[in-house]
């Protein structure tokens, strides 16, 4: 049933894409906040 391949790929692409992007954002965020003092961040 080749349909299953398409369907599963959709889920993999979707959540894989989101997870990859989330990882990218977190990493980039860490790099930027590493050098900043705590009191300058509005959310801390």
């Amino acid at each position, binding site marked *: *049933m080749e*349909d*299953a391949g*398409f*369907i*599963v*790929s*959709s*889920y993999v*692409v*979707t*959540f894989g*894409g*989101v997870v990859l*992007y*989330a990882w990218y*954002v*977190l990493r*980039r*965020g*860490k790099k*930027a*906040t*590493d*050098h*900043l*003092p*705590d*009191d*300058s*961040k*509005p*959310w*801390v």
Partner: protein
Amino acid sequence: MAETSTVRTVTGRTTSTPHTRVLGLVTLVGVAWLVLFGLVLSPADQNQGESVRILYLHAPAAWLAYLAFVVTAAASALFLFTKRHSLGWDRLAGASAEIGVLFMAITLVVGMLWGRLTWGVFWRWDARLTTTAFLFVTYIGYLAVRRLGGTAEQRAQRSAVLALLAVLEIPLVHFSVKLWRGLHQDATVLRPNGDVKLDNLMLFTLLSGIVTFTLMYVWLVIHRQRTLTAEDLLDDVGLELALAERRRESIPSRPPVPQAEVPITEVKVPS
């Protein structure tokens, strides 16, 4: 007179806060929930068979992508037309646009997979698909403009104007494409019925999809915007930090200063 004020940096702090951690956890539960219902628990469709399972991803992704771009446009308007011209709005616009592009890419790819199963073709030149592709390219252009450089205020101004021009342009493109496709009556006999009759469980799964994607969007926007804020602050504060570091290095005979004694420079958060 030796420089007495230095800036203490604390490493290890990220863009996460207790609230976002909870949100992240709930989102992961939502993802697992959606996968469970979408792939396993919900039934196949009468017309489309199993391929309807892809719609539980494709439709929410599309809706969130459009929502993201509405947020970008609204934030851009707020930046331009409020008195304070707060850069926070610009950063929200940028973060939302980036996530909108991500969701739009997912919409297109997943939509093509669904199309291959349902219509037998990856792409059809219908009004909605074509406009979606245009929206995607338009926002890639927007993101490219955001990276043109200059000060944060310059970036904010030109991006905001561009976002509002996109609000003008997208309906025009959509209307043109609709008129254009109206010339070509797609023979319904060629494509199987794209309409889906949703029973209760399928509707529930679709709604779960919307909830999960919304959670993902919110979590991503919060983190992305905080990252942008940090990066903008780094541009402002970074120079001061670097200078302070260099000054400290230039005094060789001084013993290293224990952390507790170092006075902390007050860093003003630009409003």
